[in-house]
């Protein structure tokens, strides 16, 4: 028993300051300790995320400045927001979407929601399937894993290029296919078919994200619970429903949450596949407004976009508050 103490003393002697710090940390209350550990992350986020957002928010309260050298004009309060939401900026400041809704903002909203629901839903289902396959032990599993991850490693520019060319009449075969099945011969020039292609492209690439996360969740499940279930008479499906699903649910929710958020911000893919006019999303609106140098308006659009995403996320959170891992 005394050996233990001497060793501890030796350690203390070696680096008293370090040991002191450790002691100090250990004696913090749980709350203090929590905040101490959060400090580095919060510091980084404060400088790189929160401050820029504040600054952008301030920008959203100012008028656009198209001519002067300064980036934004005079302070106008919430006018950008009210103009945006009342449709006053539809013609003069926002790009008109290709979809023939009279208001670009509304159509961006609709496109974004359709895209989000379709892609996230399908990705989750397929991703779950892929994760279940990868969770099995079989020869060549590693290579199947590579195959499933590959799309996720493809840069958006290239992902866009693949589908753009594939469905470009005269270049790839996609247009011939859509024509054969009685749809348009120029799928990328048509909003609904272009949206479909974009969803397809997104599913191809980001299902891997779902699959990887869910796989990790699956791998963390205590295998002995399956023994119990098996003996209790659970079929494979019942094991899945009653054990696998609830136990990966927290992971799935995280995946779902972040996929939803990302899907609601879709931009790069649209830009490279069909262009923002054919399939206008909320982020398209933000980026195109930024690139027309209407910084005030653009900032307002960005914050409105974030607010919409925030609303969707709150629905999620309220809905799944009870399943663990929550807030």
């Amino acid at each position: 028993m005394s050996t233990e103490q001497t060793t501890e003393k030796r350690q203390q002697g070696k680096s008293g300051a370090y040991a002191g710090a450790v002691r100090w940390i250990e004696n913090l209350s749980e709350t203090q300790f929590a905040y101490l550990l959060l400090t580095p992350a919060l510091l980084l986020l404060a400088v790189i995320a929160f401050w820029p957002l504040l600054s952008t928010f301030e920008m959203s309260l100012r008028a656009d400045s198209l001519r002067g050298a300064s980036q934004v004009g005079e302070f106008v309060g919430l006018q950008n927001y009210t103009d945006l939401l009342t449709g006053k900026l539809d013609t003069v400041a926002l790009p008109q979407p290709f979809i023939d809704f009279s208001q670009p903002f509304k159509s961006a909203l609709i496109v974004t929601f359709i895209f989000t629901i379709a892609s996230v839903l399908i990705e989750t289902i397929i991703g779950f399937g892929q994760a279940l396959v990868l969770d099995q032990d079989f020869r060549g599993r590693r290579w199947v894993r590579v195959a499933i991850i590959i799309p996720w490693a493809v840069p958006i520019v290239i992902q866009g290029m693949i589908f753009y060319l594939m469905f470009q009449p005269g270049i790839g075969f996609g247009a011939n296919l859509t024509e054969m099945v009685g749809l348009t011969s120029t799928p990328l020039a048509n909003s609904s078919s272009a949206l479909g292609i974009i969803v397809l492209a997104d599913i191809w690439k980001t299902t891997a994200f779902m699959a990887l996360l869910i796989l990790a969740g699956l791998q963390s499940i205590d295998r002995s619970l399956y023994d119990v279930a098996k003996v209790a008479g659970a079929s494979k499906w019942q094991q899945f429903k009653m054990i696998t699903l609830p136990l990966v649910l927290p992971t799935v929710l995280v995946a779902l949450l972040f996929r939803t958020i990302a899907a609601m911000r879709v931009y790069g893919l649209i830009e490279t596949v069909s262009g923002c006019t054919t399939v206008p999303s909320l982020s398209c609106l933000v980026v195109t407004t930024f690139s027309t140098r209407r910084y005030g308006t653009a900032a307002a659009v960005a914050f409105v976009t974030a607010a919409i995403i925030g609303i969707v996320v709150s629905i999620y959170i309220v809905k799944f508050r009870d399943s663990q891992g929550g807030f």
Partner: protein
Amino acid sequence: MAEAEQTQTDGRQQAETTRGPFQRWVQGSIQNPERTYQAMFYVVTLFFLFTTLFPFYWLLVLALTPREAIVNVWFLPKGFNPGVFIEIFEQLPFHLFMFNSFVLALITTAIVLVLASLAGYVFGRLSFPGRGVLMLLILAISYFPPAAFLLPLFRLFTGNVELFGVSSPMLYNTPGAMVLPFSALFMPLSIFILTTFYGQIPDGLEDAARIEGTTRLGALVRVIIPLSAPGVATAGVLTFISVYNEFFFSFLMTNGEVQNWAPLLWGILGYQGQYAEFYNLMAAASIVGVLPIAILVVIAQEKIVSGLTAGALKE
């Protein structure tokens, strides 16, 4: 038992002439559900393989098709031009762009994993006032389109922001200008992933570690992280690949020179002309840029999992 077998044999003999191999297979599967399950498993696996690999295969087809022949490309390359894989290196130091991306991704992943591990531990295993609000705040970062960060960050990294008379450092064209935003923007995801994984480790194991003499942080490093190895590795892989392919800040925080840490994306776009698009080169470059990384990542993931698990043991 024996009787049943008998009738089965009889039945088989009767039907021998009329049954095709498929029917026989079906019959066999009905008698042996395990076999059906196996077969289904392989069908599903093949389906997944096909759907994920097909566009990639088509990319290969594009790469191998000489530029002028990229017209009506179906499932086979029109022409065969493997030289494209050499050409991409002749045109640009593509490997250096890859290297830049790799380094940036590695640094970012390291930062994210460390900070997110601490935060994930806090959110997953401690209860304290402000927890919910902070989590929401961190999550809220991901609501914003990256464009919303850009202008202030650009000013910050080009020395245009002053605080108390000291102007911000000139990070433009340095790794810092990319690594910092990457870290901040990819961190929320990792924090949430790790929060769920860390939260699921039974308290007993952390208790045991603390009794054995670890500090709270020691228990995190030696027990909680290793036990969440699949989650940590996945968070790492997701971050790494996301950074490797990131297209927004990669694009804006460097002037595109390879010596200024321009990442992969600049390399790929380097094969693009104002009007002329060298699709075959871009395709080839992506394959070169992506395939080794994907394989590396899969191997790394396994290593990370076993490494984390083992890392807890050795000093």
